[in-house]
């Protein structure tokens, strides 16, 4: 197990290293140089030079790279050019919206997908199964931002159950904050729940055809009892992997939904930073998101190796 963990850790570090190189290179590829890109075409030469100095663009490339990475390792993500505040501060502030939103959406995903998937699998081929499967087809076909727009029209503008956008902050109390996050969380959860329902169902159907289920049935257990006592636990392994992937996806994938609802999260921060050409923020947030995704994948693989000893050997 330790060998497995160390091997995974090695590829985690390697992935992070390459990812940082890619992101750094992409910023380097900006037309002109970052300073003139950030200031636009009408900037004066001395302003550009001042910013160049501030960003350390006069230093050699490798030195800039090491100071960027070194800064991030010590929690210093640089200073935002537009906000004039340390990027770390902004990141923490935004994380307080994005993280709860991702957790909220993932909770909804699980609450929808588990019952729906289990029920569809236990009643395979029935009308309910067909309805659930049809609904999941629709769920993956609907663009979540379109669903969000329609939800705002119905539940915020017409019925006034939820605010149509914005975030009051956690200081305003738990209820108003959660209320503001509800429609975005539903919009994010819908396609994910559809995917997870299908995985849950097919994974259960897989285990239900195993020999040990037949043995359990032969012992006199009903199909439902066999499902609950034996099949469910074994079916959960692939489901958990997908949940892990979905969590990192929700964290990074909320970029458009955060824009629809004007939520001050990481996604909206990246988007705004891009339109304001604040490359320091872009670089840091993208690296943070990539780090989160790679870390979650690593944890999922570790858990997987823990649950299933066969996986510890080989790839």
């Amino acid at each position, binding site marked *: 197990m330790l060998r497995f963990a160390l091997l995974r850790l090695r*590829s985690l570090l*390697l*992935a992070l290293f*390459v*990812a940082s190189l*890619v992101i750094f290179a*992409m*910023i380097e*590829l*900006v*037309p002109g140089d970052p300073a003139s890109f950030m200031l636009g075409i009408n900037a004066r030469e001395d302003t550009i030079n001042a910013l160049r100095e501030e960003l350390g663009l006069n230093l050699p490339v490798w030195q800039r790279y090491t100071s960027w990475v070194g800064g991030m390792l010590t929690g210093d993500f640089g200073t935002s050019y537009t906000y004039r505040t340390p990027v770390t501060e902004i990141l923490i502030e935004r994380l307080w919206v994005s993280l709860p939103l991702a957790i909220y959406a993932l909770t909804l995903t699980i609450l929808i997908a588990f019952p729906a998937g289990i029920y569809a699998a236990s009643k395979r081929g029935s009308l309910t199964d067909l309805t659930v499967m049809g609904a999941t*087809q*629709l769920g*993956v*076909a*609907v*663009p979540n*931002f*379109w669903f969000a*727009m*329609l939800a*705002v*029209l119905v539940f915020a*503008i017409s019925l006034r159950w939820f605010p149509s956008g914005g975030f009051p902050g956690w200081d305003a109390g738990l209820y108003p904050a959660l209320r503001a996050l509800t429609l975005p969380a539903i919009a994010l959860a819908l396609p994910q729940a559809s*995917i997870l329902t*299908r*995985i849950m169902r*097919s*994974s259960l159907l897989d285990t239900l055809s195993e020999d040990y289920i037949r043995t359990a049935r032969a012992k006199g257990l009903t199909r439902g009892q066999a499902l609950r006592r034996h099949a469910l636990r074994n079916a959960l392994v692939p489901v958990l992997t*997908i949940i892990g992937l979905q969590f*990192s*996806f929700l964290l*990074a*994938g909320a*970029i*458009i939904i955060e*824009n*629809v609802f004007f939520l001050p999260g990481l*996604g909206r921060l*990246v*988007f705004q930073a*891009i*339109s304001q050409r604040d490359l320091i923020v*872009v670089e840091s947030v*993208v690296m943070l*998101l*990539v780090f989160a*995704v*790679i870390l979650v*994948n690593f944890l999922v693989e570790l858990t997987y190796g823990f649950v299933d000893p066969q996986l510890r050997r080989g790839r």
Partner: protein
Amino acid sequence: MRNLIIGLSLTAVFVAAALISFLWTPFDVTKFDIPNKLQAPGGAHIFGTDQFGRDIFSMIMVGARTSIAVAVVAVGIGMALGVPLGLAAAARRNTWADELIMRGNDLVFAFPSLVIAIMMTAVFGASALNAIIAIGIFNIPVFARLTRSAALSLWQRDYVMSARVAGKGPVLISVEHILPNITNLLIVQGTIQFSLGILAEAALSYIGLGAQPPLPSWGRMLAESQTLISLAPHLALFPGFAIVLTVLGLNLAGDGLRDLLDPKLREVRT
């Protein structure tokens, strides 16, 4: 079979709409007709008009062109690069080349695709072409992985053995014996990636980083309808339906094709 027929019919409708739009649309989508702005569906404009009096139906026809073109080329990039990489990894299995290709794949998978696509279009400029490249890059590992895993099992087959004994090299075997046997699989995956490409293009255009005006696009039509949604909901409804029906059609066609081409394949899909 039923899935396949419904799926292919839906897809055919939108492909036909895109093709016909080159020759004819009910109204000119580049001309403003302010006196007839924001008309409700019905009458001469069956889907109504937008805030500039443009015919929504015609715009959806032309928008189909953008969506389909972007998605098709993006899938093409994924296949053109991913399949050879997958074949090479399988032919050189368990060597450093295989390891390098597969680790590279893992890396691309680890990147939050939308964030990177947004970053790319921001750095290199927002355009349909950059959207295609951004979506296409993330298709490469999908096809590489699929090709490798399918090819690996084929390399164990007797007919590949005999080809090797006959003196054929790995390139020739990959092209002549492996590739034809994984085509079905690639077509099915291609359909799925096609539908994902349509969704990705819509999302990028929605936030203004995909197709630029005057090129009509479903995603941008939705973005433009947002401020008018309570006044004229039809502006948001029709482009949305177009996306949903196209994606649904492609997914159903993909499922149907998989059942038709290889009944042994599982009905699992992520």
